[in-house]
């Protein structure tokens, strides 16, 4: 049963982008597990409050075709989420404004398709970069901002200014 469940794990949905989301899923899964455990131990006729899953958990369950009523699936998902939380690569991306959800979905989809299927993204703000983004991995930093583009083409700007000044 566990081996079959392990084959069904597909990965993380694009809505789960940051380690914070993963931690939230872990806590939510623990709450669900605790609620289902209490449900199994309940006395007949006692009122039980059913746990509600979040949108992120729904996406995870849907993507991985899990049934959290089965303890094996819950255990498998819990192991998977903890593994992701501990070992998934995390990149930090900075933008000049708070990125919308659709933008982040496309970006995370590309990252998981091209870089790593479990990559997580933390988002920061740098309003002075103008446009573009800055990507910081474990050991390196990639500056894709418009400011960096301007700095790269600074000599061109100076030469243009000097030519204009000489022409004047």
């Amino acid at each position: 049963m566990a081996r079959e469940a392990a084959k069904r794990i597909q990965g993380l949905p694009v809505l789960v982008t940051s380690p914070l989301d993963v931690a939230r899923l872990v806590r939510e899964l623990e709450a669900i597990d605790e609620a289902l455990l209490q449900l199994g131990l309940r006395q007949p006729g006692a009122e039980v409050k059913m746990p509600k899953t979040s949108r992120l958990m729904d996406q995870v369950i849907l993507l991985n075709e899990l049934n959290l009523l089965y303890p094996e699936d819950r255990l498998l998902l819990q192991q998977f989420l903890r593994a992701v939380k501990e070992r998934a690569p995390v990149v930090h991306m900075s933008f000049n404004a708070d990125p919308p959800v659709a933008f982040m979905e496309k970006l995370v989809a590309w990252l998981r398709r091209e870089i790593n299927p479990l990559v997580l993204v933390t988002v920061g703000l740098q309003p002075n970069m103008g446009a573009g983004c800055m990507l910081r991995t474990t050991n390196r930093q990639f500056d894709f901002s418009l400011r960096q583009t301007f700095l790269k083409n600074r000599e061109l700007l100076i030469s243009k200014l000097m030519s204009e000044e000489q022409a004047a």
Partner: protein
Amino acid sequence: MTIWWLVVILGALGGVGIAFIWLAVRLGRVNNKAVSKQPDSIEDAADEDVEHVFNKEFREELRNRGRLHFEKIIGENAMFLQQDLRLTTSQLNEYMKTEITRKLKEEFDKYEQSIMDAKQLAIDSIQKTNTAIDEERRVLGQQVQQEIAAEKQVRLERFEANMADIINHYVLAAIGNQIDLNDQLEYILADLEANKQAIIEDIQHGA
């Protein structure tokens, strides 16, 4: 030399004056002695004759003549002495004039030479000072020119750097907030695609 001649002449005149005084005193004594002596013998008789010949009037006559002659000699010598004194005074004046003139001329020459030396020293000093000032001015001018050129270069470079930064900052401030992130996605993905291999390697080999 002229001083010594003057001293000799004055000494001679003084000697002549003293001789006349001595002669007058001597004659006065002889006269007194003749009056005081008494006839004593033949000699006294002779003396008496002599006294008779050279009686009082005759002696008085001789005395008067002697006095006149002495006065004449005294007058002549006084005249000579006066002439000599005038001559000596004239020579002395001439000598003093000449000496004073010569001394003054020498002193003036020395003074003029001193003035000329001082003037030459002052001129040399002024020329050296002018030369030093010109050299200092030339060096200072070169330093100022170099500093101006360096400052100009620094300001030009600073202007170029600042101008580029100002333009960049202006462009970023002007259009940075106007570009939507969804519109930037294509360019961001292109940049990520260009650096995909480096990102993968860093993620795989990262701590």
